[in-house]
C-alpha cells in the first residue's frame, strides 16, 4: 500500500510575510521528515489570500516557493480578491482535492519537526477523521483522553483531516460561520457521522498568541466579535435555543463587540439566513458548558 498523499492549506489575511515564510519552512521540514519515514507520498501546498492586498510580494512568493520546493511536489498561491473568511478560504482551496489527507494550518503557526509525522501516524487509524495538533505556548484547556486522544472537538488552527470523511460530511460551513465556530461545527458533524476526532499531544504546533499585560491571552477585535457570534450560531445550528437565549442575555448587556455579535445574529435569524437544519437537539455530541464546547481541564 502506497503512502497517503497530503494537501497542506493555509489562508492568509494581512499576514506578515516573514511569518508565512517561517511557517512554510517549518512545514517543508516536517513534511520532509514524514516523507523520510515513508508516512507520506505526494504532498502539495496551497496558499489562499483573503486580504485586500496580497500579503506576499512576488519576491516573497518566489523565495517561499523555493523554500518549500524540496518537500512539496506543488506549491500554489491564489489571491482571492475577497475576504472569504477562514472556512470560505479553506473550502475554496480544497475544492477538487484528490489527495488522501488535508492539513489545515493558520498562517501564524510554526510546525514542530515531527508534527506532520505524528498526525499522519494517528490518522493511520481508519476510524479517525480529524487529528488535531497540540498548540504551544498556549496549550488549549479542553479535555482529551491522554491515551487515545479522543476530544469533543478539534481546533483548525492546525489539524489533519481524512478527505474521504470530508467528501462524506463536507468541509467548513462557511455560509454559517465566518471566522470562529466552524472548527467545532465540523468536529461535531464528523462525530455525528461516526468519525473519531482526536487530539495528538505529541504533534506540536506553535500558534502565535500574545499574553496581555494582565496575563490573559490577548484577543483581537475580530475575535471579540466573531467568537461570540460563532457560539450563537453553533447553539442555533445544534438546536439549543436555551443556549441561544442564555448567551444572548449575556451579550446584549456586554461589551460593544458582544452587543454587535448579538445584533448580527438576530438580523440573520430574522432574515432566515441561519442554518435551517437543527442537527443535535438531543445533545449526542454538542456540548455547551460555561460558554465552552467541551469540558475544560482548567
Amino acid at each position: 500500500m502506497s503512502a497517503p498523499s497530503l494537501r497542506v492549506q493555509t489562508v492568509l489575511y494581512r499576514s506578515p510575510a516573514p511569518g508565512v515564510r517561517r511557517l512554510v519552512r517549518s512545514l517543508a521540514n516536517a513534511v520532509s521528515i514524514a516523507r523520510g519515514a515513508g508516512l507520506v507520498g505526494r504532498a502539495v501546498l496551497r496558499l489562499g489570500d483573503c486580504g485586500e492586498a496580497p500579503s506576499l510580494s512576488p519576491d516573497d512568493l518566489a523565495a517561499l516557493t523555493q523554500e518549500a520546493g524540496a518537500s512539496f511536489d506543488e506549491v500554489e498561491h491564489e489571491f482571492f480578491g475577497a475576504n472569504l473568511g477562514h472556512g470560505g478560504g479553506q473550502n475554496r482551496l480544497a475544492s477538487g482535492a484528490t489527495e488522501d489527507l488535508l492539513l489545515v494550518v493558520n498562517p501564524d503557526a510554526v510546525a514542530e519537526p515531527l508534527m506532520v509525522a505524528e498526525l499522519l501516524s494517528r490518522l493511520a487509524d481508519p476510524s479517525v477523521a480529524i487529528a488535531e495538533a497540540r498548540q504551544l505556548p498556549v496549550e488549549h484547556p479542553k479535555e482529551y483522553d491522554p491515551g487515545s486522544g479522543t476530544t469533543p472537538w478539534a481546533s483548525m488552527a492546525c489539524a489533519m483531516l481524512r478527505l474521504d470523511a470530508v467528501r462524506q460530511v463536507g468541509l467548513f460551513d462557511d455560509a454559517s460561520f465566518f471566522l470562529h465556530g466552524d472548527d467545532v461545527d465540523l468536529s461535531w458533524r464528523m462525530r455525528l457521522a461516526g468519525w473519531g476526532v482526536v487530539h495528538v499531544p505529541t504533534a506540536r504546533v506553535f500558534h502565535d498568541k500574545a499574553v496581555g499585560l494582565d496575563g490573559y491571552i490577548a484577543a483581537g477585535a475580530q475575535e471579540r466579535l466573531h467568537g461570540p457570534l460563532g457560539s450563537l450560531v453553533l447553539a442555533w445550528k445544534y438546536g439549543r435555543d436555551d443556549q441561544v437565549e442564555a448567551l444572548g442575555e449575556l451579550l446584549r448587556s456586554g461589551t460593544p463587540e458582544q452587543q454587535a455579535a448579538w445584533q448580527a445574529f438576530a438580523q440573520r435569524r430574522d432574515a432566515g439566513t441561519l442554518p435551517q437544519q437543527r442537527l443535535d437537539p438531543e445533545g449526542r455530541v454538542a456540548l455547551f458548558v460555561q460558554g465552552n464546547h467541551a469540558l475544560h481541564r482548567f
Partner: protein
Amino acid sequence: MSDTYDFAFGEDTVYAAVRDLLAGLRRSGTVLDLGCGFGALAEAVAALGMTYVGADVDADGLAALERRGFATARLDLEDLEGLERLLTTAADGPLAAVLMLDTLEHLARPERVLETLNRTAPAVGNPALVVSVPNVTHTDLAAKLVLGRWDVTDTGLLDRTHLQLFSASRLMQVMRGAGWFECGRNDFSLNHSDQHFPEGLPVLDPAAPLARLLREVRADAEPSAWVNQFVRAYVAGVPVPEPAAQPETAKPFLSVLVRTRGTRPETLRDLLLCLSAQTDGDFEVLLLAHGATAADVSEVGVLLAQQPAEMRERTTLVQVPPGGSRSRPLNVGVARARGRYVCVVDDDDVVLSSYVAEFRQLAETSPGQVLRTVVVEQDIEQVGWAGGAGHAAASPFRYAYPPAYDVLAHLVENYTPFCGFAVPRSFFTDLGQRFDESLPVLEDWDVQLRAVQVCGVASSPLPTSIYRRWRRGSGDHSNALHHDEHWKAARGQVLAKGDARPLLLPPGSMGVLHRRLPRGEVEDELLLEIGKRGEEMQRLADEVAAARAARDDLLSWREQVLQSSSWRITAPLRALAGPLRAVRRR
C-alpha cells in the same frame, strides 16, 4: 650621575620571584641579563649553578659587576646589530636564558628588541626569555585613576622614565606579536604598591566602602589586580599578529542557554519549537546537556538534527560532564556564548514568539543594562501519552510577578524567574563574574542581584515567557528535587554574599527606602539599643561612685590612723593600705 638603579637582591623583592621562576625552568648554562643595571640578580643566578653575564649601556653598573667578578658587555638596546652579535658571543655554548628585568618599559620600540631576540633564538640554543615589567593596572593605580590622580614618581609603577605601560593583556599581545609564548610565571604581588599614597584616601583605605567596592570590582574583573610586576618566562615561536576585533554586528544579539539533563525530551521539544518561532532571529542557542547519559545525549542530538536548517545552524549542543551544581553548565555556556546578552531557559519552560524581540527592544533603549520581562506561571503535570510519558498544562496562566523590576523588593525575594531576564555578556567576560557553583539552588537570584547592582535594569511589563511549575510529585523539577532545607541554606548563602560587599542601589532608592522602611520599628530598635546602653552606663556610674565612696572612706580612716597616737599599736592594720594603693593605681 648614572640613571641606572642600584636595587639590591632580597627575598621579598621581585628579584627573588625571577630567581625562582628561572630555577623552575631547569636549564643550565649562561644567563644573559639585558639591561642589567648593577646586576642585582648576578649572585642568585650563580647560586643556581649558571653563568651570569650582565649587559647594559651604563658603565657604572658594569664596573660594579666586574668588581664582583662577573662578566659584562656594554650594549645599547637601540643597537639591534650589537644585540645580535652579543647573543651569539655571550656564551661559549648555548644560552640558557635571557633576562629583561624592568627594561622593556624603558624602550621606545620594545617589539624591535623582542623580534631580534626571537629571530636569533634558534641559532643560540633557543634560550628562555624571562621578563619583568610593572603592572599599571594594579588596584592602587586603578583606584587613584578614578579620582583623576596619576602620580609620577622617580621609581616604581609610574617611574618618570617609563616609555611603555603594560597590562596583562598588552604584555601578552606584545610578546606574542614578537613570537614569544609564555611557559611560566611567578608574578610579584603587593597589597600596598609604591602608589599606595596618600594615606587615608577613601579609594585606597580598605576600611572605606568605596575602596572596598573598587577592590572587589577590580579583583573580580581580572586576576592581576594585586600584581606589582609581571614576572613571566617565554619560549620562542612564530609571531602571532594581533587579531582584528570582531565587529559587534557579527555577534548575535542574544545567547540563549538551555540547561537540560537530557531526560525531558518532550518538554525540550516544546521549547525548541517556541525558539524556532521567534520573530527576531538574531540569537544563538547553547543546548547544555549536563551529566546526560550517552543515550540521552544521542536522543537530544536526534531532536536537534530534526530542526529546520536555520534552527540547527543557530544551535550548539554542548556536553557538560557530570558533577557540579546547576550552575556548572551555565558557566560552560557563558564561556561558549557569542551573544551580546545572555539569558537562561530551562528545558521545561516555553517562550512566546516575542521573547527575543522584546529583549532587543529593551536593549535598544537601555543598552548595557540587565533586561527584564514578565514571566507568567502555569502548572504542568505528568500524564501518560499513547507513546509514553507526557505532560499537560494544568492551570491557567498566573500573573505572579510584578510588571517592573523593583530593586529593593528583589533584595528580599526573587520576583523574576530565570527565563525573565538577560544579562549583558560583558558582566561575565569583562567583570569576571560567574554563576555560583556552590549554590544548589537560587543561582538565578544570586547572579541577577549582582548584575542588577552593577549594570542597572530595564523592564518591560509584557509577558514573554512561561515558567511551567510541575505539580508536587509530578516531574523532576527543582521544587521537587531540592528540600526546603536546601532552599533555606541557599537563601542564607545569597544573603551572606550580598552582605560581604558594599551594596549598590540605583538613584531614587533613598526615597523608596524612606517610604518603605517601617519607621516606627527602626526607631523602636534604636531606642531599645540606646536604652540598653543607658542602663549599662548607669550601672557603671553607680559602680564607680560606690568605689569612690569606699576609697574616700578608707582615705579618711587612714588619715585618722596616721595622725592618731595609737599608730604604733595598730601596725597590723597597715597592711590594709596595700589594696588601697591598687585601687588608686587603677
